[in-house]
Structures are given as structure tokens and as C-alpha cells.
């Protein structure tokens, strides 16, 4: 429904549960992982795991 005083009509926003706050290193790891996964086709799980292992070793000392 629309019109009228808006406070009554707007459904509350979906609560933003964005997960834990990450440290800069973890944030970098997250971005690196997301960027890496885009390069892999589905089914290339083992290669992706190897990349994940390498990334985490490099970024988290």
C-alpha cells in the first residue's frame, strides 16, 4: 500500500546480517578467493582447493 505517512507503510528493511567483521588480511583473503573462484569452472574443485591453500598461506602468516 502506498500514500499516507510513510512510517507506517514501509516494510522494515531486511536485516543486514553481513557476517563477522574481517581484519584487513582476512578482507584481502576474501577478495582474493572471490576473484580466484571466478577463474574456475564448475568441477575444477581440486585445482581451486590448491589455489585456496596457496592464498591462505600467502596472506595469513
Amino acid at each position, binding site marked *: *500500500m502506498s500514500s499516507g505517512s510513510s512510517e507506517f507503510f514501509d516494510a*522494515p528493511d531486511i536485516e543486514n546480517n553481513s557476517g*563477522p567483521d574481517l581484519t584487513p588480511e582476512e578482507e584481502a*583473503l576474501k577478495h582474493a*578467493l*572471490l576473484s580466484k573462484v571466478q577463474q574456475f569452472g564448475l568441477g575444477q574443485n581440486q585445482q581451486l*582447493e590448491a589455489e585456496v591453500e596457496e592464498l*591462505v598461506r600467502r596472506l595469513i602468516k
Partner: protein
Amino acid sequence: MKFQKLKLENFRQFRDATLDFGSDSEGFHLVLGSNGAGKTTLLSAFYLALYGKSLESISETLCTEDVFEALADEEATHVAVNLEFTHESQNYFLRRYIKVRRSAGKEVPVGDDLTLTNLSSGDQIPVPQRWINSKFPNNLAKFLLFPGEVLEHFFEPGKLDLLSADIKTLAGLDKLEMLEAACSNVQTRIKQRLAAIPGDETLGRLISRNDGLLSLLKIKEAEISEASARLSDLRSELRSKNQYLDENRSKSLIITKIDAAKRARDLAMEAFRDNQSEQTEFLRAFGYVAFTANLGPKIKPRISEMHADGLFGGEWPERVIEKILNDGQCICGCLLDSMPSHKEHFAALGGTKSKLQFPEQYRDLLDAFEGGSLDVAAVGKLWEEIVSKLLSSGDHVEIVSQSLAELQQELQNSGADPLLAEFVARVAQLEAAIPKQEEELTTLRDELSDINNDLETVQKEMTAGTIGQDDRGPLVRQQAALLRVIQRIKSEAETLNDEFRSELTRELTQKLPPVYDYADFDVSVSKDFAIRITRNGKQISEAQGQTQLRAICTVAALNRLAKSHTLGSGSDASSEDYPLVIDAGLSNLGESFQALALDYLKEGSSQVVLLLLPAHAATPLSHRGAGGFKSLARLHIYTTGNHPSANITSEQVTPEIRAVFRTFGAAANETKIEELVI
């Protein structure tokens, strides 16, 4: 993006053929051809041009048969697909050239070249495949260039998982799931390595506590996921019900008013019996429901009489008096907002303000109130006095009763769907249920947060002090980091899922009303992208042509989403919609649904290319009745003929085309018929 011209060289049935959509390529393009005449080849040609590969269902042989047979062994020739298209006001020419050789009687591709030229600027696109993938993502192609069988993915029992997988791909969720699995496996390996290093008791205790908390975390996440899904379902239902009520506002408003008038009548009668008790409370409540029930105009004559009798004296602001006299209703609405506790009063009456419709013509008064320039205290006092006078005379009972009868008559005259009243009641239930569900979710999330805090403490202890001094330190930190990153990615995926489902639901909801009587039907999309259509809360059977039609709605919805969103692997969002090319996708539809399906496809894209058997051509089109397709920019009909196995000529399809012409009447002047020469 719009396809303008497809030119084929030595590609399957087509040695040299051009499918020209014309300079103004928007509209509905119908390609007629018998089995084997090359309809599916045309669909495959679009795939080949854009992605360098054929559809899975098509054999891998590319070259025209007689051209290939004329080759000597080890002799080569080429297959080429040329596609002219427009995208964001630029014209492009794409050429996919594949060199093939005859080797021991088999076709062997020996080279592949792709060039893409921006004809508007004259520039060559440096990495054409990347450009295509960013503008026209491969994962969208499945929904835009599709053979009829893909429809089965949507509704065939046992194939629903395929749809779920398709949509997950489209939303980019499958890759996130794949990443999550990879991270979990790596985490397990790190844990195993860690366990292999001899450690002290403290570390062992911490690791065990860490594992316990992780298990708790999983349980809590599952609970949150369930609670969130319930909330999402409630919101989705509320949204669709409200949308329907919105679309039928004039009728649903009468129901809301009747509901309010009944309450007003009960209150009025009660107060008339004992008009001294809690009169102020009553006045407020009555003001609320009177506004909702639009009783102002009924009360107005009485106010007018009181004014004429000089009952208000000279102390009321002239503007307020004028407003009351001009717009009897508005005063009630303003009064409501003037009362700090009005929400509670109204809630006590079992309603919420979301049912109120504040008419635009009273907007200035509301603005004045909100802006502080209206003398609220004076208005409130005036209202109390008016109602008090009405109360003491008993007029109000008569007014609301009369009003109720009129409203009920009005509802009857409006021919409103009986479900409207049910929807109004259901909306009230939903509005009450949603805050409770939100509260439950908040509690669960708080609990999750506590677990996370404990986990963080444990992990800090694990990484502190002596533990960090040897080989175990980095491993523990890596394990903890992976865990946290996975959680973060999971929650982002969840948000992506929610957003995508919400958009998909909205698109589908908008597309359903003309097909189904929307008063009866609700559409919802579950967490795993199963699309359900329910009728009065019960899932409808997957029979008849409705299921295919729903599939077409889905395709159109996905196209609309694709236009406005960046989906999947970082593709650029486009302000343009995509062409839809469908191979015989309508032939199995029930007749009464065919024409509607065409309408949906049209709505889903401004360029639709439909590849049909000639026998199916006249039927779907003739169902629209004369002028039914006037919204189409143009109807183009092409025929593919002269194929040895089909031997279709334009003469043979003429009766069907004539039927189409009769149906289209004036629109037929814009219809163009071409024969594709093979």
C-alpha cells in the same frame, strides 16, 4: 542488444543464407520451417556466433553436407557465422570463422577466428570474446537462446533441481558454494596438519572448545536460516497480497472502510450507552475509524448545521473550519496524527495504519500538520467538541449505520472478488506475524553473535603467547581466518540469494495477473529457487499448459532481471534488454495459453525470434483476435524451405500466413515475408 542480421556460410543446411531483421529490428519475428528445415540450426548459429560452440543437443558437424562431400581428403573449407547487432546505440559486426578439414571422411576443425568490429566507430574490439561475455553473459544465454526442451527444466518432476542449478548459476551462487566447499576442505586439511604437530594440553583443550563452538555455530546458522526463510515467506506473501490489494484499491478500500465502519458503529453504540466513560479514548478511536471508513462526508452536514447554529463560537481558526466544511474527512486524519498514542489506540481496535489511505487532496493539510503550521491543539479540541455533540444526540449511530449499509451496497455493486475480504484479513494477520518473526530472528542472531564472540576469544587464546611461537601459530591463524572468511562469504551469498529471489518474485508476480486470476494465485520463490504457484494456499497441480506458461513467465522475468542487474561473473549491467530466441517452445502449450505466452515473451524482450513449425504458426497467432498484437512493433515471418527432407515452399505455408494476415488486419501491412534461400 538487438540482433539485426545473421548471415551463414556453409553452416549445416545453409550454404549461404541471410536472416535479416531489418534496420528496426524490434518486434516479433516468426521463422517458419518444417522439421529439418533449419530452425534449430538458426538457434545454434546464434550460439556459435557468440560463444564459439554449439548447443549440446546438436551434433558437432558444422559444415554443409554437400560442400563437405565435395571435398577431397585433407582438403579444407570454412564455416562462418556473421552476426550484425546493435548494443547501446552502437552497431557491431561479429564474424566467427571456423576452418574445417576433411580427414578420413570426418570433419575436423583446424582453426577458429573471431572478429568484432564496432561499425559506428570503425574500431576493432581487441579481445572480442571477453567483450561478448561481459555484455551477453554465457550463463544468461540458456534463458535467452533456448530450445523448447529447456522449458522442461522448469517444471518436469525430477528436473526442478536443474532449474535451481540454472538460477544459482545465473545469480552467481554456484561459484560461491564451490568456494565455500573448497575453503572447508582446506580448513580440514590445515586442522589435520595441526593435529599432527605434538601440542600441549592447553592447545588441545582450546581446539576442542573451538570445535564445539563451531558445531554450535552450525546449528544456530541453520536455525537462523529457517527463521529467515519463514520471515521472507511472510514478507513475500504480504508483498504480493498488498500488491493485489493495491491493484484493486478501489474495491479493497471499500472492504477496509466496511471493516472500519463496523467498528465505528460498535464503538458508537457502546459509547452512546455510556457516553461518559472513557469518552476521550473513545473520541480518539472513533476519529480513527471514522477517518478510515471515510465517514467525514457523512458527518459534514451535521458540522455544517452546528457551524450555522454558531456552536463553534468565533475562536476556531478560519482555515480549519473551512477545511472541515470543504473536506469533512480530512479532519479525522489530522486528528489521528495529533495524538501521540494513536498507534496504541488503533492497534487496540485490531488495525494498523497501513490500511489507511490518506487522499492526495488532503496532502496540504497533512503537510501543514507535519510542518507544524497547523494548530493541532485547536483541531483536536474542535474534533472532541464535534463528536461530543454528535454523541449526545445519537446522530453518530445513525450516521455510521447508514454509512455501513451504503458501503456494503457499494461493494456489492463493484463486483469485487470475495477473496478481497480474505486478503484484507490476511494482510492484518501478516502484519501482526512479521514483527514476531523478526523478533525471533533477532534473538537467534544475538545468540549467534554470542557464539561468535566466544569463538573469537578462544581463537585469540589459541593464537596468543607461546602457541604463536612455533609452527602451529600460522596454521591456527589460517584456520581461523578461513572460518571467518567462509562465514562472511556465506552471509553475503545469503544476501545475494534473498535479493535475487525477491526480485524474481516481484517480476513473476507482475507477470502472472493476466494469466491467472491473481486473486486466487500466489507466486513464491524458495531459498533453492523452486518456483511455486499456490491457489488459496495450496500448491496447484502441474498439469496442462499452465506449467509451460509459467516457464515462459520465468524466462521473461529472468530477461528483465538480466537487463537491470549485474549477474553472475561480474558482467556489466546493461540498460538494454536481450533478444529472446525460442525454438518451437510453444508447440506443446494448450491453445488458450499460446497467445498469452507470446505476450509474455514480448514483455520479456523487445525483440523475440520464434522458430515454429508452419502447422503451429496460425494457431497461436489467431487466438489473439483482430488487433490483438497491435502492441507488437512489427511481425516478420520468414520461411525456410527447399531442404531435401522437408521440401517446404512458401506456397505451402501460405494458407497459415494468410490466416495470420486475416487475424492481424491492419497490422498485416507491416508484416514482411521473406524466404530464406538455402
